[in-house]
């Protein structure tokens, strides 16, 4: 183990991984043209039941971290995070990926490259969790030829196309507004054609803003949908901006699930919490609450019936009332 940590580059290859996550470093382009950014990506294949994390992992977990080892003058960009899903473990909620995900990153080569190939290498560290969590790590590399012409797509290019479909959309046509108050933080939105979704989930991308496990309220009035959230218990102050990804399901004339990037200033106010949706796990809570209310109703009826029979006690105590 110590040897492995001391000399990771000796073991570097295109693929690697841990017991539960297989990883491969891929390039979208078959070659590199000096000065022209290209995209590489880490493909992560999770064993059934295991997940890895989004940039904001939610209540627990850690996002993927990359330490690049690139040729001189090459620059590694920000990770482009595909839209996550939500995991409930006990009473906690985290955000991340199951199955397979390709995490793209742009690499910018310098305008002049004095070599005929470029070795793109990096150390990738992630946390993988099922019920328990393990640290995963791999040192991976790939080598691409440097060519003066515009690069041809590599054999893995279709995987990048599929991955882009999972990135949240940046759209100016969606209208957003946000408000924060003592009872809730609210996000209102209108889709470009005014249609409304059946379901909405908001993934805030920073920690200590919203409680990940609190139910999200959702209500629609005309063409405007409104979501409400619970502020994080120890949030230092109301957020100045609300940033993250909004996932919408059941929009007419749209794919089953649409993800939109949200970055909106938050104005002070006192928005009222919207009701949580009555589907999925919150449906179970609602059913339990309904059952409880039904029991109480019956108890109330029973108590009311018993009332006249208890009257003699009142007479004995001389407490007469009409």
């Amino acid at each position, binding site marked *: 183990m110590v040897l492995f940590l001391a000399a990771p580059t000796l073991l570097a290859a295109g693929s690697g991984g841990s017991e539960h996550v297989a990883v491969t470093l891929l390039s979208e382009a078959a070659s590199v043209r000096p000065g022209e950014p290209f995209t590489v990506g880490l493909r992560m294949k999770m064993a059934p039941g295991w997940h890895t994390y989004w940039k904001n992992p939610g*209540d*627990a*977990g*850690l996002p993927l971290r990359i330490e690049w080892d690139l040729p001189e003058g090459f620059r590694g960009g920000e990770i482009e995070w595909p839209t996550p899903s939500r995991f409930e*473990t*006990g*009473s*906690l909620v*985290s955000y991340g990926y199951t199955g397979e995900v390709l995490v793209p990153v742009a690499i910018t080569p310098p305008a002049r490259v004095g070599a005929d190939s470029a070795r793109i290498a990096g150390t990738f*560290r992630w*946390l993988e*969790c099922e*019920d*328990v*969590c*393990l*640290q995963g790590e791999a040192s991976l590399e790939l080598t691409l030829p440097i060519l003066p012409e515009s690069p041809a797509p590599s054999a893995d290019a279709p995987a990048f196309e599929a991955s882009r479909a999972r990135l949240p959309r940046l759209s100016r046509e969606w209208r957003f507004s946000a408000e924060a108050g003592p009872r809730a933080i609210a996000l209102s939105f209108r889709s470009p054609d005014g249609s409304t979704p059946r379901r909405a989930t908001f993934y805030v991308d920073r*920690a*200590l803003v919203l*409680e990940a496990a*609190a139910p999200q309220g959702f209500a629609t009035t005309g063409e405007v949908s409104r979501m409400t959230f*619970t502020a994080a*218990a*120890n*949030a*230092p102050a109301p957020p100045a901006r609300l940033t993250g990804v909004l996932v919408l399901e059941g929009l007419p004339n749209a794919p089953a699930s649409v993800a939109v990037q949200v970055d909106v200033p938050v104005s002070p106010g006192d928005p009222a*919490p919207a009701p949580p949706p009555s589907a999925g796990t919150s449906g179970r*809570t*609602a059913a339990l*609450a309904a059952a*409880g*209310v039904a029991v*109480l109703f019956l*108890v*109330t009826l029973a*108590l*009311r019936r018993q*009332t006249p029979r*208890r*009257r003699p*006690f*009142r007479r004995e105590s001389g407490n007469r009332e009409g």
Partner: protein
Amino acid sequence: MRRLVTAVSILAWSVALAVPSTVQAVAVVGKPAPAFSLRDTDGKTVRLDSFKGKVVVLEWTNYGCPFVKKHYGSGNMQALQKKYMDQGVVWLSICSSAKGKQGNMSESEAKAAVAETGAGSRYLLDPKGSVGKSYGAKTTPHMFVIDASGKVVYAGAIDDKPSTDPADVPKAKNYVADAVDAVLGGQPIEVAATPSYGCSVKY
């Protein structure tokens, strides 16, 4: 009587309707720390309110979690416990792992495991997770500092290096040490809340 019945049913109905929307009480900086009593590895009951007048550190733990291993394997957690317990601070390590989940131990198993780590803190068992949930403990570790008046003054991560790598320990800014130093020295706490990092608490 009818009035009583009406009053009871109004009360019951309002409880029934209020419960689903009630947000769980959690440890909030600036507010009183939620009261609790838990058993330690000797089966003795430990009550938080018996430490009034002392600074208390609560550390959520799970010995099977790689983030906890980072801080115990490097000796960081034990060193912090010793340093502050020597200054009169009470340090309680709480395990909220449910029965059958990672980190859950019987009193005797926990006693042996604690002895092996060399931890100086008192180890408390919360297998039902009720104390963990009442604090909003999400990760292991998740740290809380309570001042002598019983108020929460810090909630969050142990330090600013969210990783499982013990090599990060010496480079890290330790939020708990900073908070305890400040509260012992009567100084304001610079960073009172941070996002905790680690494995999820195994409720």
